[in-house]
């Protein structure tokens, strides 16, 4: 039982056209599975649905990060049909990202979900909970077309689980059984998405033998992880 795959290209070789893929994409490059994204660009699969907190952050070059890659490159490459995100566009309207330019032209779909609802929908997908009620978004445009029900006097929106064909995960350490640990805030969406895909692929800094990450320190148990690739 050894889940290590020798290259990023091999790890994403079976991603087909039309696949649904989860990937982190918070405000910084730390959590991005950059090499998996580049491999997917090279793989060329089209018509993808990307589930991510953002829809691509083009501005990492200035941070001096070694590989300044986000899912923005997939948008620019025309591989994406639809995005499910909470923060899809640039904070500054004056500097639109590739997603926003495509969106203006009607070339890409958007499903907007509040960040906590997005996180909870992904967790629900991994946890076998098909749907849940949340007060978030009640009385706002997010609730339009959704069932709203009152619990303890509060209006709540029915939200549905999200599942994916693939999750691209950026973790810090792995063992060969697929157990993962993350560094700092890069845990945020990565640790959730790892649970909610049919095939979870982790891009890591270090691969250790079982026991290398202690039993209390494992953040994603190996049951969720199918493939590991070392950077």
């Amino acid at each position, binding site marked *: 039982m050894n889940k290590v795959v020798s290259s990023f290209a091999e790890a994403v070789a079976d991603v087909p056209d039309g696949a649904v893929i989860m990937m982190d994409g918070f405000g910084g490059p730390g959590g991005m599975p950059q090499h998996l994204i580049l491999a997917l660009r090279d793989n060329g699969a089209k018509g993808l649905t990307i589930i991510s907190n953002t829809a691509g952050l083009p501005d990492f070059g200035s941070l001096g990060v070694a590989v300044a890659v986000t899912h923005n490159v997939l948008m620019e490459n025309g591989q994406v049909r639809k995005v499910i995100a909470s923060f899809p566009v640039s904070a500054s309207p004056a500097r639109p990202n590739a997603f926003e330019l495509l969106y203006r032209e009607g070339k890409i779909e958007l499903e907007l979900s509040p960040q906590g609802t997005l996180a909870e929908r992904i967790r629900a997908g991994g946890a076998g909970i098909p749907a849940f009620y949340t007060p978030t978004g009640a009385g706002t445009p997010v609730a339009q077309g959704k069932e709203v029900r009152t619990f303890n006097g509060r209006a709540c929106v029915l939200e549905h689980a999200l599942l994916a064909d693939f999750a691209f995960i950026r973790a810090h350490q792995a063992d060969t059984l697929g157990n993962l640990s993350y560094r700092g805030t890069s845990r945020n969406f990565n640790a959730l998405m790892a649970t909610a895909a049919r095939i979870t692929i982790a891009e890591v800094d270090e691969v250790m033998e*079982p026991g290398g990450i202690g039993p209390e320190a494992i953040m994603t*148990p*190996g049951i969720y992880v199918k493939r590991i690739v070392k950077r």
Partner: protein
Amino acid sequence: MPERLDRELIAMRVAQELPEGAYVNLGIGIPTLVSQFLPPGRTVVYHSESGVLGYGPLAGQGQEDIDLINAGGQFLLPTPGMAFFNSAEGFAMVRGGHIDVAVMGAFQVSEKGDLANWMLPARGVGNIGGAMDLAAGARRVIVAMEHTDPQGKPKIVRRCAYPITGPGCVSLIVTDVAVIEVSPAGLTLLEVAPGWSPREVQEITEAHLSVARDLREMGF
């Protein structure tokens, strides 16, 4: 009637059903014994509702750690690659379809694969524990049990008389006399214990058994 298999042999037969690399949950009783009989070279990872994945064998005397137990409260040994988590995460694994095989005991199994294993009505109260979650969530549920109850009555029945743990969830039944597959078409007798005929198995089974064309003798 021919001699029946003992609990260890039932567990040994179940162990053959665990595929390489599978994530497996073993219930209390006969299922717990299964881990002792894994075929050589086979690696599986055990999950427990107590909040641990990849645990080692039962602890011997003097090795007990009160913070390392299985769902039955038995003490376990640590093993490299083991992971701890809270119960919401532990049951996310179950409900979310991440457990490949759950092996459970049963009071009754119906011809539709309904499982009853949590309450004897005479007691007036019962323990569900993780059984309903495993019945609903595991990809494959194997029941390991004696073929008849202590009074000699069939446990494989047309309809469960006892309260249900999960409807239509059982895939395979391994008993002390037979291996029986559950499918939408009903129950198929795949294997009989040494010395048993299909007719003899049917005599102590309330539900109808079709006999597999390639019926075999249970091997260990």
